[in-house]
Structure formats: C-alpha cells, structure tokens
C-alpha cells in the first residue's frame, strides 16, 4: 500500500488527548482503518527570564532538561538557575523543582543518567516557594535569571521577614570570627549585597552583584575570592571590615523598620 501520511499536533480533548484527520484526507483515513502513531518531535515549552542572554546550544539543552524534569511524577514546575545560564565557567547545573514530594535523589540519578552532567537539585513545596519568592533575597537573586517549563515572574511585592534576614546573616557574622576558605567569604559577601538590594526593594541581578563586589574589593582581591585562593591576614582584615559595615547597615535598616 502506498504510504499515506500527515503530520499533526496532539490536542487536548475533554477526556482523551486527540489527533484530528485533516479534512482533505477524510476519504483516505476512514473510520475503521488502522493507523500507526509515531512521536517525531517532543513538545518543548520553555520560558526564559527577561534579560537572560543565552547561546543556542545552552538554550536547546536547557529546554530538553526542563522538559525532561517536568514530565516526572510529582513535578509542578522546574527551573534551571545559576551559573550554568550566565557563565561559561560553571561547575554544575542548578535545578529548582517545585514539588510536594521528596524526589531529589530520584531526579538526580535520572538526570545524571540521561544527560551525563553534574546537577545540583533543590526541591521545595509550593507554599514555601511562594513565601520565599517574596521574602528571601537569595531566592529572588537565584530566580533573577531562569529557564522554566512554565511561565513565571518574580512578584514585585516583597515581604520583609526580620527573622529570615537574621537567619541569613548568621554565616557572614561567623566569618568575622572564623577564617574559612576564600570561596565562603566570596559567597557571603555576595549574600550581603543581595540582602542590601532586597531591603532597598531593588532588583537582585547576580551579575550586578559581582560588578558591585568587584568595585568594592578591587580587581585583585575580588579574583582571589572568586578563585578560592589563599588570603593573607591583611586582605582578610579588609574583607572583614567591609562585611562588618554591611551587617551593621542591614541591622540598622531592620531596626528602623521595626520602629515604624
């Protein structure tokens, strides 16, 4: 028999999903005929945050990853975030999943097996996610750039939760007493800038944070921290001074808000 074919998209029906026979082919594909249905292209819904500039290769790969995750049981929404999207110098692919179930380990092994890359997975239930996108500077910074399988926008309205900010300040405060690796200083310096911007209700663009940090520390010290290089006493003292003044500024801001 001559091969007769058409290509159509699956549409959503009331009870079942369906494929319609094109009207011009209704005399060829008739009720009672047997047909074969074959998947030729998977749907790739992809939502990209504004201002994210990403190359075609990463864009295609990201779409494949988020769509793969979104089809797993229990996944409400999947996001790719972090340095994979913004830098060539990334160690792993950060994935944020909204789910009511604890599925990190399962998703991790499926992703590693399918894509052969290193992943870092965070999952959280919807109610916590909804809280954090309003109240957590770090979550807002993380979601400034993203690729997701569903539409998403950071809410304009923020919630200042004093306890939450104080929780985030614990580590920067510890660094005033303990000497840890440069990478820890780097991460916490960035955390403080994110909190400052959050309290001023400004956008928390991770690339801007780096720019600001570079300006404050100057190029040499900034790259020592970023590259996790050993710091001398004088440099540590300098960084601690800045950290201290940032913490003071943040605490004063919180205190002022409490007075109102």
């Amino acid at each position, binding site marked *: 028999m001559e091969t007769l074919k058409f290509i159509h998209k699956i549409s959503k029906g009331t009870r079942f999903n369906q494929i319609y026979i094109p009207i011009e082919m209704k005399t060829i594909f008739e009720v009672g005929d047997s047909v074969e249905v074959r998947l030729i292209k998977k749907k790739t819904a992809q939502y990209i945050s504004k201002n994210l500039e990403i190359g075609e290769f990463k864009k295609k790969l990201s779409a494949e990853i988020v769509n793969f995750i979104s089809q797993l049981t229990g996944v409400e929404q999947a996001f790719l975030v972090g340095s994979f999207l913004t830098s060539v110098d990334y160690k792993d692919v950060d994935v944020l999943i909204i789910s009511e179930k604890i599925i990190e380990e399962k998703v991790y092994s499926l992703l590693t097996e399918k894509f052969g890359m290193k992943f870092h997975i*965070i*999952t959280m239930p919807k109610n916590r996610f909804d809280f954090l996108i309003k109240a957590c500077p770090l979550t807002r910074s993380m979601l400034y750039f993203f690729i997701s399988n569903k539409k998403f926008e950071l809410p304009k309205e923020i919630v200042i939760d*004093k306890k*939450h900010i104080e*929780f985030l300040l*614990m580590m920067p405060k510890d660094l005033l007493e*303990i000497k*840890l690796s440069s990478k*820890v200083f780097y991460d916490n310096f960035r955390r403080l800038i994110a909190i400052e911007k959050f309290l001023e209700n400004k956008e928390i663009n991770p690339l801007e944070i780096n720019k600001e940090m570079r300006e404050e520390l100057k190029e040499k010290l900034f790259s020592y921290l970023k590259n996790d290089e050993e710091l001398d006493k004088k440099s540590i003292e300098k960084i601690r001074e800045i950290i201290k003044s940032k913490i003071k500024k943040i605490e004063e801001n919180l205190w002022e808000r409490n007075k109102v």
Partner: protein
Amino acid sequence: MGKKQSIGELTSLLAKSLRHKIGSIVNKNEIYSQKYAKDAEVLLKEAQKVSLKENWNSYDKSEIKQELEKKLTKELEEKTFLDESKFNHINSEITLVLKLLELD
C-alpha cells in the same frame, strides 16, 4: 597548638555548625533549608580538619562533649530569632556529630 587550644577551636566550630544545622531544622518553613544547611557543612568540614590533627583519648572526648554542650546552648540562646524548639535538638545533634567525627 596545644590540645587544650585544639579542643577550644574544635568545639567553637562544632557549636556554630550545629547552630546552623538546628536553625535549618527549626526554620524549615522559612528557608530553603537544603541549600543553607550548606553553611553547617562548611563549618563541619573545618571542624573535621581540626579534629584529625590530634589523637583524642577518652578524657579528651568527654571534655569535648561537655564543652560543646555549653557552647551550643549559649549559641542557641543568643539567636533569639530561631524557634524555641531549637533546644530540643541539642542532645541528638551532638550525639550525631560526635559519632560522625569518631569522638563518641
């Protein structure tokens, strides 16, 4: 560094690490705890380094436990923004961490 000093450094790091960990447990509705339990891990790794520098006898281990209990209680008391249930986790977390570092 003398043993006494090492015990001081080790217990300070562990107390801070456990304060972060307990903070993540009791504030789990506020923070994406997985990611910021990372702070606890960073401090724990540092404590591990100090711990490996010495050979601890049973007297040292008991001193470490006592000092850690005191320091952790103080750390948690100072952090008034952490939920009061934080104190319920002291014993279990100390037992866990000392076991991990083979200091039990």
